[in-house]
């Protein structure tokens, strides 16, 4: 027997952030033509550093500390 369900229509698109019961979610592609919700990422790297009063490293600092760290090409 079919169950009667009244769907709530959401006026959202990919890239929007929605809040459900106090938690934020990103509206993202499900890679199959539809959308899905994922726990939101609300701040960028630059915003996080700025919040903490942090500065970018100089090229010299970066090279001295991290210049020789290898990459494995994975991501």
């Amino acid at each position: 027997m079919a169950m009667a369900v009244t769907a709530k229509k959401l006026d959202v698109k990919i890239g929007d952030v929605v809040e459900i019961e106090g938690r934020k979610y990103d509206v993202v592609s499900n890679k199959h033509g539809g959308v899905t919700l994922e726990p939101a990422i609300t701040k960028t790297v630059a915003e996080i550093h700025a919040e903490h009063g942090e500065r970018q490293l100089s090229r010299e600092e970066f090279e001295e500390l991290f210049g020789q760290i290898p990459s494995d090409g994975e991501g």
Partner: protein
Amino acid sequence: MPTSGRARIGVRISQDVWLEEVERLHPRSPARVAAERERRRLESEGLEIRELRACSAEAEDGTSLGGLFKVYVPIREASSSQRPFAFVFSPAGRGADVYLRLMAFGERHPLRGTRSVYERAHKRLHGRYPDR
């Protein structure tokens, strides 16, 4: 090896980033348990620089994470295939202090439909996922 001769680097973790990256996961999920197990040591001892790997500016999965660094989790001497998760960090400075700040955590190779830690880091860095 790093030319600075420095063996370790400090790690800073913002509670709001921890909430979005780790506490989004089920409390008993292997990923969350693994991350929580590492947190205290990360914050108190930092990381050995030799444990870090540079993220790729142009990876095969479409992510672009130049300037960021990662460590596989669990953090231990083991092959990468035995460490399914990763923390991704961004270097920062404050005064003379230089350290890494946590930016993303998650599975390296999740099942289809779930974002990898690299895709999450890409969104943190660029403000959008790589397939958008």
